């Protein structure tokens, strides 16, 4: 059966065909759709875990019981899950365990461009690198087999372009699930140093065996012949497809299983061509290894850009440079000259806009976090000053506070982020007597990645009712005395609460609670309009940064009734009473 699938859909399909019993993950672009698709298959247990570490640990338990399972996350999620991964490599698995990590070359939606292959080397586990949806399905099946063959977790690394591109995929039927039954074996499953040292030796032996296996594993690693032997390309992932399209005459060593390095295969390929170029996204991992084998090669040291996505355009430029027809190194981040960027903005009716607009009225430092609300850093709000990682919003604030920073520090994070890794930060602030003002912008959703559920929404990934954790109750249980829940669209009250809490000489938590308008799919209120007679053209409403407020040809602001969500923020901002609800036929809230 041929299906038209994205890479992420194909991974879900491959997992299902491979007899997966359980799947765990935390949403993160470009990995989110894998679990969202897998949950549609009957008989597979799927969950959104609070974070990636939790997801991998739960999967480890499932695998040790004998079940096949997968864990999904984006590249930075593996930073969170790195701790269990390192030890699981020693302890090993019973049922096939595949850690699916989606890298993001070009940083389309990520704070870093880290190359997950480094983690495979660090954890000493195999990594597979599909080029498209066809590979994605097939490699998922291979990953289960390798994981069970070697008794270790396997990383399936995709990239944004692999996960989000579609291809025709030949699909099969599912194999039976593994029988689950825990067998006691402490010398294997408890890595106390006494046993851990023995496991350490086994890991090295395993890698040698895998390197030899990878050199003869034709379904994963193979040479695509070319007509001319003067230039041979060593590559992995989607880059292989671009190279074949743009340099069809060059033989390509396509490494779907790039680590542990298939040394004998690399040597053999290099001997069959006059010149070798390694073209890989991310860091020069293959390239440096090829050189360590005593093989001279081109790569990131001369012709391939060091950062950014290797798009077909970049491959085109690399080709020109290899041919000596272009002497400039390809530019990593292509942008049309002189064109204004069009960054994403808060949607009309977004409660984050209301919260951050209120914060513009205070002379404080704001430490932010990962979520839609990261957009508060852009003009006209510009109300986020520092941002590092998931859960960092509270802890960064605490550090600034403890360093003796004179200004008050406000730490912001979202509801899903709070459950992901914000609770420990809140504990730190309370326990160590910080004075930061903490805010959870609670829209009851993991909104940025497409409205996934989390422990606070009262629903599981399958849509079943679940206990809804209360942020307020958790904060109080952690010892936080000052906790306020506030509607951000009630600007008067919000301003008052912010003023009180920022002035307080002890920590406090404000829960700014309002739903994501994209999720509830309706207007929040009646559409607003600007009365031209009352408008003094002070442009205060434009400082909300709402896409529904436009500047007309006469230079005055106006509200686009198609876009307006009726949130009333602009109305509360206007000092002249020029903004009011207006009846638009068929568009009442």
């Amino acid at each position, binding site marked *: 059966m041929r299906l*038209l699938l994205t890479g992420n859909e194909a991974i879900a399909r491959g997992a299902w065909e491979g007899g997966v019993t359980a799947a765990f993950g935390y949403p993160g672009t470009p990995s989110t759709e894998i679990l969202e698709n897998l949950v549609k298959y009957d008989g597979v247990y799927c969950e959104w875990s609070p974070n990636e570490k939790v997801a991998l640990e739960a999967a480890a338990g499932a695998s040790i019981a004998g079940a096949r399972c997968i864990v999904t996350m984006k590249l930075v999620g593996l930073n969170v899950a790195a701790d269990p991964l390192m030890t699981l490599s020693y302890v090993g698995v019973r049922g096939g365990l595949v850690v699916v990590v989606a890298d993001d070359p070009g940083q389309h939606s990520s704070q870093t461009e880290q190359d997950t292959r480094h983690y495979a080397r660090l954890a000493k586990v195999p990594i597979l690198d599909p080029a*498209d949806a066809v590979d994605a399905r097939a490699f998922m099946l291979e990953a289960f087999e390798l994981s069970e063959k070697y008794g270790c977790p396997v990383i399936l690394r995709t990239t*944004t372009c692999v996960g989000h*591109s579609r291809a025709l995929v030949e699909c099969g039927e599912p194999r039976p699930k593994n029988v689950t039954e825990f067998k006691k074996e402490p010398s294997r499953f408890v890595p106390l140093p006494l046993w851990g040292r023995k496991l350490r030796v086994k890991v090295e032996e395993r890698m040698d065996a895998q390197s030899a296996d990878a050199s003869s594993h034709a379904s994963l690693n193979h040479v695509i012949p070319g007509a001319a032997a003067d230039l041979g390309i060593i590559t992995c992932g989607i880059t292989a*497809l671009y190279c074949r399209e743009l340099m069809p005459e060059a033989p390509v060593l396509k490494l779907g299983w790039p680590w542990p390095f298939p040394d004998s295969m690399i040597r053999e390929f290099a001997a069959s061509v006059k010149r070798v170029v390694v073209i890989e996204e991310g860091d020069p991992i293959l390239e440096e290894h090829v050189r360590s084998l005593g093989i001279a090669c081109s790569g990131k040291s001369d012709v391939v850009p060091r950062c950014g996505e290797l798009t*077909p355009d970049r491959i085109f430029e690399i080709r020109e440079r290899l041919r000596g027809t272009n002497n400039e190194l390809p530019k990593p981040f292509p942008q049309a000259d002189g064109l204004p960027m069009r960054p*994403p903005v808060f949607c009309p009716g977004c409660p984050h806009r209301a919260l951050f607009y209120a914060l513009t009225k205070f002379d404080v430092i704001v430490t932010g976090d990962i979520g839609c609300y*990261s957009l508060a850093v852009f003009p006209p709000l510009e109300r986020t000053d520092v941002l590092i990682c998931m859960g960092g919003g509270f802890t960064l604030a605490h550090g600034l506070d403890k360093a003796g920073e004179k200004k008050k520090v406000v730490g912001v994070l979202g509801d899903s982020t709070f459950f992901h890794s914000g609770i420990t930060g809140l504990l730190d602030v309370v326990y160590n007597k910080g004075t930061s003002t903490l805010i959870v912008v609670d829209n009851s959703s993991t909104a940025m990645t497409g409205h996934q559920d989390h422990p606070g929404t009262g629903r599981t990934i399958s849509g079943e009712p679940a206990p809804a954790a209360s942020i307020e109750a958790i904060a109080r249980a952690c010892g936080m005395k000052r906790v306020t829940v506030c509607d951000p669209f009630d600007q008067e009250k919000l301003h008052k609460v912010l003023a009180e809490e920022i002035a307080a000489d002890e920590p406090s938590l404000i829960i700014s609670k309002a739903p994501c308008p994209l999720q509830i799919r309706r207007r929040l209120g009646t559409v607003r309009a600007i009365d031209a007679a009352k408008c003094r053209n002070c442009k205060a409403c434009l400082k909300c940064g709402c896409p529904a407020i436009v500047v007309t040809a006469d230079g005055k602001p106006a509200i686009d009734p198609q876009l307006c969500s009726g949130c009333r923020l602009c109305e509360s901002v206007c000092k002249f009473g020029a903004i009011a609800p207006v009846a638009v036929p068929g568009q009442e809230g």
Partner: protein
Amino acid sequence: MSRDITNVLFVGIGGQGIIRASDMLTEAAFRLGFDVKKSELHGMSQRGGSVSSDVRFGKKVLSPMVPVGMTDYLVAVSEDQIEVARPYLNDATVIVRPSDLSADDAKSRMANIAMLGVLNRYLKFPADLWETLIRENFAGPVGEANVLAFRRGANLA
């Protein structure tokens, strides 16, 4: 590069249905028996940012992304994204733009589907295939409204 491949580039702003329209073209090409690949770039948020999607179909497609200068058809649901796409166009690229639609269609939420209608003046896929796909994508009266928008775009109304 083989001219057996047709390259269609969709550009617009988040929320305009770029991904939906490109998915529908991909599905249409698949049902007509072509090899087809599609890629999409959507930014970190759902609304307001630049969005683009490449659809390539023909006998055998390797890369899902259209190389520089190789676009046969540019479907620009937002006029201001045409310049952003300029490096991917060539002298012969057909540009389908909002001004090809009636003023009402151009500003409606169905502009993406009406523009698939305009595109089909060139691709000439069977109209009933499109209408089936539209009804599969949008249920009930919304589907029928989109079918009419498609027909107006395709000059079939």
